[in-house]
């Protein structure tokens, strides 16, 4: 199978227009000893054979289409109305490039402007950019902003241990060539411990809302503490939770970042997702990534364009603060369509269903002898269960009953061996939760 349209006659016509006799002649500049190597890749497939092969790969996976899923930990299975996928499949959107030529890109540009507006309102911030690669890289970029705001004099970054472990890892990878010091997340640290680490060398404090364990912490307290030493408070927030909870902006955050995947984007084994980035107006000129602004054309018509471009790498080159050029355009579009069709009431209802179902599940599991659920703090749709057996063993039992169990927290937190992070969303029916409870009960008794 091939998508190359040339006929032999056309090839000959083109070669003669160029003034060469064969296509090979066009590659004379490539060192002869290395030219035209063999490629050990199997021969071409037809579309029919290709899909059969891919279907076999797909069917070898245990996925949320076939199983009841209670796993979250940074990627969430929500229901997405059909209209979202139909809009994404419009070739006018997905086969377009970055909107450098605004006259030919008003669709993409206006959609990003709407996305920025929705993210601003969800987070309680003044402005949002056109997105980053994912929640983890958004946090990494927030560090750069905080250090810039601190005029490169503040090099300490305080991270809560209950920010997603992989977000913290990505942030460290990004900044390994700098002098920044990351502290706070290398052991058990309470809110007071984190606050005690803040000083006048601190550029920012970052916390997660709800945190990685699902708990809703007191953001206002963190904000006051960070601001009292002149540091920024960066909040990593789940946008689905923000449909219900007070916005981080209202609680005093300066920058809000996070993963937009819960907003209509499929699990897709971890990507593509969309990292959102929102901030107060005074920091807008320091943030990385594309930003779309409103303006007018020569006829005075309202129109949209990428703005504050001189911050970006293609203009500022080695003086740019980030090398990012693309955003996650199509995924930002997915979130925009999703938020539009869910709307004010739909999104709030989805969030409330998550909350009620998670609390029902937590209550039921807490009643099983041998299991303990930490209910000391308010939580949204994830909670920690202390189990009588290793989590891996329990999940092996659950999968046989058609259930993908919770996340094994012992992988990331030494002090949380045998602790499972359970996630419940609006997609989990009551009978699924009841089955989960039954199997957990059997495991404890066996």
């Amino acid at each position, binding site marked *: 199978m091939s*998508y*190359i349209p*040339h006929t032999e006659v*056309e090839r000959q016509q*083109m070669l003669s227009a*160029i003034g060469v006799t064969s*296509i090979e*002649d066009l590659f004379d500049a490539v060192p002869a000893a*290395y030219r035209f*190597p063999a*490629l050990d890749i*199997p021969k*071409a497939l037809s579309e029919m054979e290709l899909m059969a092969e*891919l279907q076999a790969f*797909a069917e070898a996976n245990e996925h949320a289409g076939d199983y009841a*899923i209670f796993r979250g930990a*940074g990627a969430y299975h929500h229901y997405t109305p059909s*209209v979202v*996928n139909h809009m994404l499949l419009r070739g006018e959107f997905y086969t*377009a490039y970055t909107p450098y030529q605004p*006259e030919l*890109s008003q669709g*993409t540009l*206006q959609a990003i402007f709407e996305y920025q507006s929705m993210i601003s309102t969800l987070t309680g911030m003044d*402005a949002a950019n056109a997105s980053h690669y994912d929640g983890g890289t958004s946090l990494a970029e927030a560090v750069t902003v905080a250090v810039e705001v601190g005029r490169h004099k503040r090099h300490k970054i305080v991270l809560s241990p209950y920010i*997603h472990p992989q977000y913290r890892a990505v942030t460290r990878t990004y900044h*390994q060539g700098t002098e920044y010091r990351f502290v706070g997340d290398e052991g058990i640290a309470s809110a007071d411990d984190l606050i005690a680490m803040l000083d006048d060398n601190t550029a920012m404090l970052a916390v997660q809302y709800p945190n990685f364990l699902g708990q809703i912490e007191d953001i206002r307290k963190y904000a*006051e503490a960070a*601001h009292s030493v002149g540091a920024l*408070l960066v909040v990593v927030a789940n946008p689905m939770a923000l449909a219900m909870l007070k*916005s981080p902006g*209202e609680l*005093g955050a300066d920058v809000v970042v996070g*993963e937009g995947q819960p907003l209509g984007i499929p*699990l897709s084994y971890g*990507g*593509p997702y969309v990292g959102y980035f929102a901030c107060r*107006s005074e*920091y*807008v000129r320091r943030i990385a990534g594309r930003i*779309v602004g409103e*303006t*007018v054309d020569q006829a*005075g018509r*309202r129109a949209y364009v990428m703005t*504050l471009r001189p911050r970006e*790498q293609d203009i500022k080159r*080695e003086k*740019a603060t*980030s090398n*990012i050029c*693309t955003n996650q355009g199509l*995924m930002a579009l997915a979130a925009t369509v999703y938020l*539009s069709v*869910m*709307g004010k009431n*739909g*999104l709030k209802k989805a969030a409330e269903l998550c909350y*009620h179902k998670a609390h029902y599940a937590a209550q039921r599991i807490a009643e099983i002898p041998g299991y303990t659920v930490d209910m000391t703090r308010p939580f949204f749709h994830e909670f920690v269960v202390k189990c009588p057996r290793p989590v891996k063993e329990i999940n092996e039992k659950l999968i046989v009953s058609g259930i993908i169990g919770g996340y094994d927290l012992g992988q990331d937190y030494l002090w949380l061996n045998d602790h499972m992070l359970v996630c419940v969303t609006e997609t989990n*029916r009551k009978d699924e939760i009841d089955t989960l409870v039954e199997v957990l009960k059997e495991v404890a008794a066996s």
Partner: protein
Amino acid sequence: MTNNADPKHNNKVLEPLIYDISVEGRVGATLPDCDVPLADIPAELVRAELDLPEVSELQVVRHFVNLSQMNYSIDKGFYPLGSCTMKYNPKVNEDAARLPGFAHLHPLTDEEGSQGALALMHQLQLWLAEISGFTGVSLQPAAGAQGELAGILMIRKYHVERGDTKRTKILVPNSAHGTNPATCTMAGLTVIELPSDKDGNVDLDALRAACDDTVAGMMITVPSTLGLFEAHILDVIKAVHDCGGLMYMDGANMNSQLGIVKPGQLGFDVMHYNLHKTFSTPHGGGGPGCGAVAANDKLKAYLPGPIVVINHDADEEDDAPLYSLEMPEKSIGRLKVFHGNFGMHVRAYAYIRTYGGEGLREVSRHAVLNANYIRARLSDVYHIPYNRACGHEFVLEGHFEGVEDVHALDISKRLMDYGYHPPTNYFPLIVPEALLIEPTETEDKATLDGFIDTMRAIAQEAKESPELLKNAPHTTPVSRLDEVRAARQLVLCCRPIPDWVEQVKSGTPAGN
């Protein structure tokens, strides 16, 4: 930062904002009733306002369909945007990525439950290694720029681990993409810009003069951003290696090298691919992409991870191999949450499988044929500064003697009137009034002829009626925009700022 225009009284709006058509109480999507007892929601946790639109599903459909129709796209027409490789994005690849077993697979599924995904990623890693002549591949990076960051961090760590900490410079030709120098700065290294010689190659004397024991490595795009295969590439690589530096290849232009030459065999140490260019995963209006990184034996232990490996311990006869995720031994770390843009991995896999090894070589052969055909047929009306056989793209100068006021931008805008997306303009920076033209292999001769005729007609117009170019475009949904106003009067959000924002702000200010 809010928009004060009232669209109801503004007939100069092409398509209202989704918020403009919102009506209080209207519902778009309905969810099931709650089937469990309701839990208490502490009032102090709950937000008062949720300022999202209230629209019907049909309104949503019409709104986004109308928006889509204001876009130009590959599906609509010819998109010769140099350095972006705007080739056809096969429809079957979209179906493949949406198979339920891929789309609904949780990234933290146990290895036993994700063997299908891991097997696909493993095979893709092997093919990308084979195509590039390298021995290790990581699919982590989400975009070319992130792949560059990976590669430069790998080079940095290689030197640091050997105690060679004085190597802090990266050599970058002045024809490079802006991401190259920006990447070096992000990685904490210093950029040394190298001039190009009169033929568009790296100036070898300048290169040799810059090579010393403070050089960590060099980043170079092959073929160059001028579309030219570096004539002295082996000398360039040798000069850098001889001083102890490592070679990074920016693989943005791999569409001219499939089965033509393997960067690893030329002596490069590490490179990135753009799966969204070379392997047809859609650009999506600016992402998502995938910037897979490939490295040789010297650097593969530093790849970002995790990557997929075959777990031999579990491999018994007659069993399928057991795949697992593993962090390379000296990895620079994780660049992305989870395993990279898996949906893009599926599409790239499908693309490679569709063409096969010989087919991929045909891709590059025809991409280069198409670019040279346009070059040959425009060289008598446009100045082509480096007029020799090019790779998959070439650069011409968008201005004419005696018509001083017509610029590359005007030619670009005029092309829109004829139904074409313009080439990349004003890049590379070393060519005045640059127009970088990349047709890709999926365009047929008639399409190329139409574009060539139009470019020739515009050259004529530039001399006879330049105002046609200066005032272009005339037929697009909007005319040229006031970009200065966009930057000076920042409007980034259409929602009113809630009252409490000022209250929060009047508290202790941050960042002082």
